């Protein structure tokens, strides 16, 4: 039976682009579907200092522009559309698009990624865009000379806290533990930065504001004492949740948090279906991991396709 593609890659972040690069070079009839612009969550990142080969560092924007240019050089077919559903269980997989179109293929690589996790505290939803932000590189310039907070203690939180000191007068990092998880070089930079201070063992209980947006945070320390912090902005950088809403979760094995479980060759529980990047169940979510997994997933898919012949 005829299919539209041998391989469809869903999602155009670093994992999807790496998979696409390998597919294009492997002369696989492949399609990459992306809902917005290629780049994924890296587009939320101000600066990337840990991608090998970029010795001087690179902006998240430029890195993803280069990855996109790389797949374009090998003429990977790309489509900008929203996927509304996937039927993966049969040998021929069907991917439905939001405009009603259906595409068939023999193998699929799921690279739908993840998005920032919310705190789920009172005021957060109401004040999103009015002082509550999940993207420091987008919204930092609106806080020139102001006092703001960053919630989180990982690489993303500390990298972006440092970025925000270019704009804000003072950045208070609120972290629920007494030490940071961020890599040591970022910790050293943050501790040396006089514009950054820390609230340790502390959690945001509520975000308060008025018509002008956020003006105060209610904070509880782990010992039960409470305090308030006057800020006009709060950047929530406390990890990610999976973009799995479009995925057939009744067909795929996932972990408790909803990330897709694969083996070391990126195979999911369904033959011919692979997952790579932040959507995959794993400990560490890094750009280089995502790219490596994308390449691995595509090579696995190629092997699977060869076996079908």
């Amino acid at each position, binding site marked *: 039976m005829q299919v539209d593609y041998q391989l469809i890659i869903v999602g155009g972040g670093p994992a999807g682009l790496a998979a696409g690069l390998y597919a294009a070079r492997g002369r696989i009839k492949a399609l990459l579907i992306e809902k*917005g*612009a290629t780049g994924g969550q890296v587009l*939320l990142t101000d600066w990337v200092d840990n991608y090998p080969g970029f010795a001087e560092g690179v902006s998240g924007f430029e890195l993803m522009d280069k990855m996109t240019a790389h797949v374009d050089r090998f003429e990977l077919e790309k489509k900008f559309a*929203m996927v509304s559903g996937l039927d993966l269980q049969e040998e021929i997989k069907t991917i439905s698009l939001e405009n009603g179109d259906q595409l068939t293929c023999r193998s699929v690589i799921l690279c739908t990624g993840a998005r920032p996790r919310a705190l789920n505290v009172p005021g957060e939803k109401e004040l999103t865009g*009015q002082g509550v932000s999940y993207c420091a*590189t*987008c919204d930092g310039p*609106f806080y020139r000379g102001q006092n703001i907070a960053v919630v989180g203690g990982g690489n993303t939180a500390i990298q972006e806290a440092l970025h925000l000191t270019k704009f804000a007068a003072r950045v208070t990092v609120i972290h629920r533990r007494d030490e940071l998880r961020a890599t040591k070089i970022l910790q050293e930079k943050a501790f040396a930065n006089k514009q950054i201070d820390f609230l340790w063992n502390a959690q945001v209980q509520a975000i308060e504001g008025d018509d002008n947006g956020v003006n105060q945070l209610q904070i509880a320390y782990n010992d039960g004492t409470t305090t308030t912090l006057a800020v006009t902005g709060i950047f929530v950088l406390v990890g990610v949740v999976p973009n799995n809403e479009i995925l057939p979760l009744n067909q795929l094995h996932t972990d408790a948090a909803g990330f897709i479980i694969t083996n070391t060759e990126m195979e999911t529980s369904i033959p011919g279906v692979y997952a790579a990047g932040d959507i995959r169940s794993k400990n560490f979510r890094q750009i280089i991991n995502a790219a490596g997994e994308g390449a691995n997933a595509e090579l696995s898919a190629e092997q699977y396709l060869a076996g079908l012949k």
Partner: protein
Amino acid sequence: MASDKVLHVTDGEFDDTVVGNNLPCLVDFWAPWCGPCKAIGPVIDELADEFDGKIVIAKMNVDDNPATPGKFGIRAIPTLILFKSGEVVDKVTGAVGKPQLVELINKAL
């Protein structure tokens, strides 16, 4: 593909182009350094083509035009504000999907 139907408005043109327009107007407040703004760019172009003649789709660069975003209390981008007869009908913040933007636009049609 970038649509030639998308208007690029400045602070100086805002009152005439958006507030005074007979058609409803969706304004995308964006900046060149904002990744998610870039991400919704293709969707904005598609909407401009699909709703041509029914609604004006405009973009305002907040770097070059600080007055209008200040007036509307914009502190995050992308923010999209829907205007009808000069009044704010509704707004959304962040790189939302096309179905959500179509739903937003339908509130003014």
